[in-house]
Every structure is written in structure tokens, then in C-alpha cells.
């Protein structure tokens, strides 16, 4: 039997997974994918109905890490400077002093991101893509571990601003938690009768652990054949009827990195086709823009990608 390439980073993953799963019940697969995005260096968008545990998932991840965590509640009157920071004139030093905004953190929870104006949403673009912000003409680097978990609610449209395609592309994954099966939800009620399990969460990993995990993910091998398979999948999204805008090369990168992370989580030093197929829908679906006709006929991005997975031949 093969031995894992690095045991320590995988242990980090297992500890984190166990800790988060103890609070967010019935979401093992989504926790695994969330951590894959964290380990792969991407950001995550949680898109689901209110009360399905999006914010809890983000908070428990922040609490499980010994890392700086900030939360921004997005509202229509939120300004870019409320996120990035602002330079204030110090009369004593007769100079402008920069006061860092909440974006200077390790884990950023952008709650209900689609309630802010596009201008404010765009303030996050540079931070998410390049791990830096430009304020007052000066570039300021963000911490080495900078992970954005954004949430949004798909059913409310009044007073919201749908994320532009460019911003959607910045998110490595979009996860939908969905409602729990009745038996799991019953267990959840029992677990939270007296106190929220979140209160009991203690940090189980440090920033250095996560950085080590990321480095280990970069060491996971992926063959040229599977890299081509990823490219074929992404290219198929651009040729599929009903899709007006397909996935970008950034999507190929996100799919590769998150598949590498999954391989590491599975204790493998190389990527298998199964891991790519597992991550295809979360990494590609939210980047597609469909035709109105396709939407009218009941298709959505997820079914489109699933259909592509059923069409593109896979190496064995």
C-alpha cells in the first residue's frame, strides 16, 4: 500500500476537518472541499439559503485556526475604504497615517457580499487575486495566509447587487450547503439544546500549519494526461450550447490546485481522475454565464458541468 507523501500536513487537514465537522453536521463533503480551497490557495463563495450554516462554517474555520479573523457585514452603504483602510492625517507627526481595514487579516468572512455596491465589491478584486491592496497610490501586501469566505443568498434580489463575472472568477470554489436530511437536522437540534458547539471549538492549527499544508499541496504530482483532461473539461464549457461565457484559464488552475489538495487529503502524492471530477462542479459551475433560453428550459450551471463530465472522455 502506498504511504502518504507528508503525514504532518495531512494531519493538519484531518484535525481541521474533525473540528469543523463536530460543529457543522452533515457537511463532510463541503468541509473537505472548503479545506481544499484553503489548502490550494483559493477563496470560497458559499451560496445558499439563509440559515443553512454558511456563516457558522466560516466562523468555525476561523475559530479552529490560531489566526486573525475579521468579518465584514456587507451593506449597501459600505464603502471601499471601510474594507481596505484609510489614510488619516496625524497632526502630531504632520503626516498621513494609514489605518488598515478589515481586509488585512488571515481569514476574512465577507457576509452577504451581494448586498454591497459593485464599487465596494470590486475593492476586494485586487486583494483576492494578488494578495495586495492599493490605497492612496501605495501597494500594501496582505498577510501570507489570506483566505476569503464570502456568503450570499440566492433567493433575495431586492437591495442586492449580483457579483460581476470578474468577481465570480476570483472565487476558486462555490459551495452550496443545502438543507440537511431530517435525521441529521434532528441530531443538530439535540446538539444545540443548551449551547452552540461553536463555543467549544478550540484552535487546532496555526497559520504556519496552513502554510505548510499549502506547500505540501504544491508538491502533489499531476500527470500531463490529467492536466490535459482538466483543459478539455474547461474547454468544453466554452463550446457547450446554452453557455454564453465559459470558464477561464483561472478556472483550470483552480481545478488543478483543489484536485491536488484533495489528493493530499486522500493520502496520495499524485492526482487521480476521481479527484478532478469531484472538484469540477464546485470550481467551474459558478463561472459559467448561461443563455436566457437555456435558463428558461430549466438548465443551470451545475447541470451543465455535470453534463460535460458525462461527455468528456476520461483517462483510465
Amino acid at each position, binding site marked *: 500500500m502506498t504511504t502518504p507523501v507528508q503525514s504532518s500536513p495531512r494531519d493538519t487537514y484531518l484535525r481541521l476537518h474533525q473540528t469543523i465537522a463536530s460543529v457543522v453536521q452533515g457537511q463532510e463533503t463541503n468541509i473537505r472541499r472548503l479545506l481544499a480551497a484553503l489548502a490550494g490557495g483559493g477563496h470560497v463563495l458559499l451560496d445558499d439559503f439563509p440559515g443553512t450554516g454558511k456563516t457558522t462554517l466560516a466562523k468555525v474555520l476561523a475559530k479552529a485556526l490560531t489566526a486573525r479573523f475579521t468579518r465584514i457585514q456587507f451593506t449597501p452603504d459600505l464603502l471601499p475604504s471601510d474594507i481596505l483602510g484609510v489614510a488619516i492625517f496625524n497632526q502630531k507627526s504632520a503626516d498621513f497615517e494609514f489605518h488598515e481595514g478589515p481586509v488585512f487579516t488571515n481569514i476574512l468572512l465577507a457576509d452577504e457580499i451581494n448586498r454591497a455596491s459593485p464599487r465596494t465589491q470590486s475593492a476586494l478584486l485586487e486583494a483576492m487575486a494578488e494578495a495586495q491592496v492599493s490605497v492612496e497610490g501605495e501597494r500594501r501586501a496582505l498577510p501570507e495566509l489570506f483566505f476569503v469566505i464570502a456568503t450570499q443568498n440566492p433567493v433575495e434580489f431586492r437591495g442586492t447587487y449580483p457579483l460581476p463575472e470578474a468577481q465570480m472568477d476570483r472565487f476558486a470554489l462555490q459551495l452550496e450547503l443545502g438543507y440537511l436530511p431530517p435525521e441529521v437536522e434532528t441530531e443538530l437540534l439535540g446538539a444545540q439544546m443548551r449551547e452552540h458547539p461553536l463555543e467549544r471549538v478550540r484552535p487546532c492549527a496555526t497559520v504556519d500549519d496552513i502554510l505548510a499544508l499549502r506547500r505540501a499541496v504544491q508538491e502533489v504530482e499531476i500527470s500531463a494526461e490529467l492536466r490535459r483532461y482538466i483543459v478539455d473539461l474547461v474547454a468544453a464549457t466554452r463550446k457547450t450550447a446554452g453557455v454564453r461565457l465559459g470558464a477561464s484559464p483561472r478556472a483550470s488552475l483552480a481545478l488543478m490546485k483543489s484536485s491536488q489538495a484533495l489528493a493530499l487529503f486522500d493520502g496520495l*502524492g499524485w492526482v487521480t481522475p476521481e479527484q478532478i471530477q469531484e472538484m469540477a462542479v464546485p470550481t467551474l459551475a459558478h463561472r459559467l454565464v448561461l443563455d436566457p433560453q437555456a435558463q428558461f428550459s430549466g438548465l443551470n450551471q451545475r447541470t451543465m458541468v455535470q453534463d460535460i463530465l458525462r461527455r468528456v*472522455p476520461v483517462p*483510465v
Partner: protein
Amino acid sequence: MKILQSLRTRPLLVPALALWGWQTELLPWALLMGGLLELPRWVRPRLDIPVADFNRLWNFSTLLFLGVGLYLFLAREGLSSVGNMVSSETPGGRLDGLRVISQTALVFLRWLPFVLFPFVLAFSWSRLEALPWTTFSLYARAKASRNEESDWSTLQLQPQHPYLVLVLFASLAATGNPQGYLAAFVGVVAVALWPWRNPRFAWWQQLGLLALILGLAYPTQRGLSQLREAWQNLEGRLLQTAGAGNMDQFRTVTALGAVGQIKQSGGIVLRIRPADTQAPGLLREAAFNRFRGRAWSSSHRDFAAVGTATEGDVWRVVAGRRVTQVFTVSRYTSGGQAPLALPGSLLAVRDLPLSQIETNYLASARIQDGPTLVQYQVEAGEGGGFDGPVEAEDTQLETLAPADVEVITEVAGQLGLAGLKPEAAIETVERFFASRFEYSLWQRRLPTTTNGSPLAVFLRQTRSGHCEYYATATVLLLRAAGVPTRYVVGFSPEARGEEWIARCRDAHAWCLAWVAGRWRDVDTTPGSWREREWAQAGWWEGISDLISEIWFRFSVWRQTGGNWQLVVFAVAALVLSWLAWRQLRGSRWRRSRPPTQERPVGPPPPGLDSEVFELIRHWERRLDPRQPPETLTTWIRRLGLFERMDSAALAEAVLLHQRLRFDPRGLPPVERERLRELVRRLRLTS
């Protein structure tokens, strides 16, 4: 959408097909079909038919559709009905054709459930939920293959829904059992819509409404059929009176330039096959004796039937004369009517496939209500012809315009025609035109609002023109000399191999002069006219001649009783079979092709020597083939192999195989050997 959902959840095809079978008296078949279509609701096995095969199956169904349509069209006299609709002179004939066509369409509609049944059956037993729109449209398929976007390309369709509608329509087209049909039809539709009735009303109110609808529908239906009967009676009376008026006689007038107009075409009008090598000579179609303005007309417009054929199909014009010339003429008719091209010395006409011929005093002959192509044999000889004797009109110059009278008198004076014997006068006129005139194709449009005489222009100024001018001038000059004359139009055939043909270009006009007690052809047009006309022939004339010849032979074959419907059907069957064969061939070819993955460039991927591929081939042969987008693990799980054999060994083998294939660092020798051993073990147990 709700209706569609209701169709999906209710086995409505059985009652709909039963309704259709009841009407078409095919009830056992219909029940069997309905049972086969709805059975998959209760049984689990399904066929794994890919969409590509449905595309081919749809192509088959389309070919079947065309084949059945063609068969019905031909078997039910479709072509001749369309021909009647187009060519019939009477509204009644056209309506009859229309009626046959509509009855054929109804029969076709009645049979359509059979035609599309294989396709719907295959879909019912397949795993697919719906078919993409591209299956049903070649155009959409072509667009999809070019990766072009289309508004309809993402639409999906369940074939049972349109099939249900089709079956109901087909049941409407049948008229087997009208009693109770309406109630059954409304019942099927009501069952389909019942779950979506208005909840504000109780069930008995809904049923009452249904009963009310039926109660009103039956009297309405009876009223409609009475109305239809009344209309049919009225239609019959209208048709008795419609079309009773005589049609205009043709060829009673010809203006100068009319023949010239005809001459501009090279189309073949007459085909003449002589019994020997003798030239048929001039064949006349109409004769005229009155010139007024610039047009020739006939003083005898009335045609009379020559009587019935004797001795079989012989119309004998002159009896007791020796036949010196025999030839067969073929020509197409226009709506059944045509002038008969005949020689001046006609003795008899044979083999005309109709009951009568009409002639007039000036020896013009014609047929009415003939077939599309007529063929008749002409016998000619000395003393033949049926021209009426000389009458006053044949010498008349008074009807001419003053300008024409003036020029004719002037030229006749110059030639000294007055007092000459007829033969001498003819000779003088012939010499006059031969020596001083030339043939030209010039056909300047003549002024119609002035008093200018085209004849005066021809005789005095241009001295050049085509046959109509020569013939008119000859007729009038000879009349000035006291010779009775008539103006004749017809054809001067040209030789082509063993047969003779007369093209439009060979249309000709000449003079008929009364000499020594009989009518004689006098043609003063210079002999060069044929060469000049030939020079006008287009390069395409050979091609059009070939097509014309083929069509002519086909028409003759049809006329002589050839089963043309069989030939059309055979050709269509060949074409459809070829298309079907292409589908089959395409199917095999596509299946044998590897998946549409592009061949990777560069060195072959590692691990292709893995022994697991042997296992894969083995399982593919014995169990179910792996679909190209299935990973190895997914496929093995689908086959249930983890439960059927040593799952630990299988999982380890798969993992080692994947490492061999997808880890660029490869597999260490020990683990490579382990993989071989595992495969050997699995091979033995599987």
C-alpha cells in the same frame, strides 16, 4: 407545462392508441403498441441507447415517413391528381384532384402512429429522460456540430408528448366508428386534464360540465354534417354551370411579327419520323385569307368536326388517291388542345388517340381534349388536301390599309403583274424576291400609333425581312395579279439523323396560290433563312435537346402504357434504401471509432502497459463496456465488482494502476510486480 407533466405521469398512450385502433379497426395492434410503450412504467430493465443512436433512429423514421408518404401518393394516383388539379380546364376536375389529394393526406395521417412507433418505443425503453432538440432537426444538428449557438439548441423534448397528440389527430382522421367517438375523445382529454381542474368546483360540477360539453357537441356535430351535405349539393349545382362557356378559338388571327416571336426559341415543337427518307415538306398549322392593318385573320372562324374515325383510327380526308408520303408527327398539347401540323396534300390522319378532329374551311385542323402528347400518322399524296374552294376573300385587296394598297399597286405595276397567267405571275414574284431581297432577322418593333405600313417599309426601303413579310407581300402581289391566294403559317422541319424535327425557330409563313384548279404552296422567302436562323442557336441547345429527348421518350413510354408509377416508386425506393444504408454504415463506422478525444501530441502517456487494461477488456467483454467519461473506480463500482470479488485486492490494484498511470514518478519495481500479481489473482477469480 402542467399538461406535459400530466402526460408524463399518466399512461395516456394506451387509451389514445385504443381510440385510434378503434377508429382504424386495428384495435389489437393499437393495444399491443400502447402496452409496449407504457410497460416501462412498471418494469425496471432499460436499454442503454446513446443520443447519437437516437439521431440515426430519427433519420430512419424520417426516411420511413417519406417512403410511406411516397407510396401512398403513388398508389393513390397522387401524380395524376396533381396533374388534374393543375391542368384541368374545369373547376370540377380541379376539385376532384384536390379531393383525391386530401383523402391521401388523411390516409397518411391515419398511418403515422405506425411510422413513428419504433422511435417512441426505443425512447420509452431507454434510460434517457428527454432528447435534445438537435435529434429532430438536421439543421440544428449541423449548427451544433459547428459549435454554433442556437436559441433552440438547449431545448429538450420527450417524444411521447407529440406522439400522443399525433395519435389523437390520427384517430380524428379515421372514420371507422363515428358513434361514440366524440365522447371517447373528450374522455381521454378529460382524464389528461383532470388533476388540474379548477379546485373551486366540486367533482360532480366538473363532470356535469363535461356532460354539458358533450351534450352540446353532438347536436353541433350533426348540424355541421348537415351543413356539409348542403354545401356538397350546392357545389354540384354550381359545377354543372361553371365552365360551360366555349373557350376562344385559337389561331384565328396572326399579326405580322407573331411568327418572328416564336422563332426566338430553339425548343422542339414537332418530331417527324418519315416512313421513308422523303422530306415532309412544309407543314401548315393555320391558314388566313384576310389582311387588315398589319394582321392576318380568317373569314372562317368556325371549326367543325370531320366526323368519326373509320377503319379503326383513320380520318380520311380524300379517298381514292395514291399515298406517296407517310410520316408520323409527335407533339405536346397545351391543356389538351393543339393545332395539327399537316401537309397541304393530306389524304388521311391515323392513330390519333381521341374521338374527333376539327377543321375549318381554310384547312386548319385542331384537336381539343387530347392527351399531353399526341402522335399521329399522316398520309399524303397527289390530289390531297381539304382546303375550301376559292372564294371572294381570296382575291380581296379592299380590306387593306390605303398605304398597303398603294405600295402593292405600285410594285405590281413595276413587275407588270397585271394580265399575267398565274404561273407566270408566281414566277415573276419569286424572281423579284430572289433577286432584290435578302433575309434578315431584323424585327424592329413596328410603330402602332402611326399610319406607317410595315409592308411599305419592307417593299420600298429595307427590302429585307423574315418569312412573314415575304409571304404577306407574295399573297397580296399575286392577288393584285388576279391569282387567288391565302396566307399560311406552319413549320418547315429540318433533318436530324433519320428523323425530322421542327423547332420554334423553324416556324414559317408562306403563300398558298390557286393555280390550275388546286392550291399550291408558294414560298418566296430566300433559301438562306435556315442558315441565318441556325446561327442564332445557343450553345446550350444540345443540352436542352438531350433533356427534351429524354422527356419525350419517357412521355411516349407513358403514353404507350408503361407503368411509370412503378418506376417512380422503384427510383424512390432505391434512393431511400441508399440513405438508409448510409445510416447503417455511418452507425457502424462511428461505433468503431475511438471516442472523440484528440490524440495527444508527444510521447505516449506512461503506464499503458499496465496489466489492469487486460482486466478492463475482460470485464468489458463479459459485463458492460465502460463509458468514455467513466473513471475506472466509478465503472467498477457500477458493475458491483467490489461486492463480487476480493475488494481489498481490487482496490489495491486500482490504486497501483492509477499510480503507475498518473504519478509522473512511476511505480517502484516491487510495487509493479505486486500489481502484476494482483491482476493475476483477480483474473482467476473474475
